[in-house]
């Protein structure tokens, strides 16, 4: 037990952990479903457990499990997951200036733990307070680690219970429900709305495309539609 006032760095870490707490409640069912989906796709227990620490990106994990379960070609599975995770490049660029003075090792840790939620919490904090880089890193770590801990706990439980879930429960339907829940916060303006609608219509029309290329093609059509919509504003 330490005595006296906490150091600014330690206080920032605690702030980060506290800030993300309300959000991780929504992450728990998402992780649970990712664990169940990995088992249902036909991964071994070890693989299903390894998927989360190896990838640590829920939407891409769920999409990959869906495509693995439907025997899509390896290249299509990997490409689809990479496209879903391409957004992290944007977050990486936004975190580079505040973390510029950190050691490469610490920036690598920050990169590994980068999620939509930890990024969102940190950008709000960094815009409000003018802290030195170590305190900012501590805040980020507090948020990112609480999220990671929740995510991994949830996926482990999902993998363990996954094999025991009766088919009549239709728990596989929770996967599209998670995507629906994530979709609406991603629609922030006209361009993203047009992209979502065009991609949805394209995906429903292109389901029969060979090699399960429907998802990638539909996403591409959505992105082009979003760019055109923005261009005409």
């Amino acid at each position, binding site marked *: 037990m330490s005595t006296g006032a906490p150091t600014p760095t330690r206080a920032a870490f605690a702030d980060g952990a506290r800030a993300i707490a309300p959000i991780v409640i929504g992450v728990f069912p998402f992780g649970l479903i990712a664990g169940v989906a990995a088992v249902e*796709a036909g991964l071994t227990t070890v693989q299903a457990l390894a998927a989360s620490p190896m990838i640590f990106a829920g939407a891409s994990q769920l999409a990959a499990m869906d495509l693995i379960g439907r025997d899509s070609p390896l290249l299509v599975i990997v490409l689809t997951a990479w496209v879903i995770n391409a957004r992290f490049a944007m977050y*990486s660029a936004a975190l*580079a200036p505040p973390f510029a003075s950190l050691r490469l090792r610490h920036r690598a840790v920050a990169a590994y733990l980068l999620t939509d939620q930890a990024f969102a919490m940190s950008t709000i904090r960094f815009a409000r307070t003018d802290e030195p880089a170590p305190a900012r890193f501590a805040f980020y770590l507090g948020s990112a680690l609480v999220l990671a801990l929740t995510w991994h706990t949830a996926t482990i439980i999902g993998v363990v219970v996954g094999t025991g879930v009766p088919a009549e429960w239709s728990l596989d339907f929770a996967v*599209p429900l998670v995507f629906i829940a994530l979709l609406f916060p*991603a629609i922030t303006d006209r361009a993203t709305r047009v*992209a979502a609608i065009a991609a949805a219509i394209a995906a429903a029309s292109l389901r029969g495309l060979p090699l399960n290329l429907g998802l990638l093609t539909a996403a591409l059509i959505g992105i082009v539609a979003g760019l055109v919509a923005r261009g005409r504003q």
Partner: protein
Amino acid sequence: MTSHSTLAIWGILAAIGTGTFLIRFSFLAVLARVDAIPPLVTRILRLIPAAVLAAIAMPALTHAAGTFDLATDRFVAGTAAALVAWRTRNVVATIAVGMGVLWAIDALGWFGG
């Protein structure tokens, strides 16, 4: 269930994981600034989540049994969940309503479920 080999799945996980880490590390590694990304690339990256999520979710509702059919328990339950997601932006409520409506429809035996 997949018919990919155990080794192939390890390869998939490793490839996705390595690629995803490199994407996350990209700018943090080389310390390039946001304005180093061309504006068009930024616009494309911003559109990816909405387009991809919609493209994944839609066929699960419109092709519940493999072919296009809107008179299914899953299309109705998914539409209800979408309304909840749109109005509340609450992940737990969205999943709860979607699953609840699905189970209710099946219990009532609509659509011959």
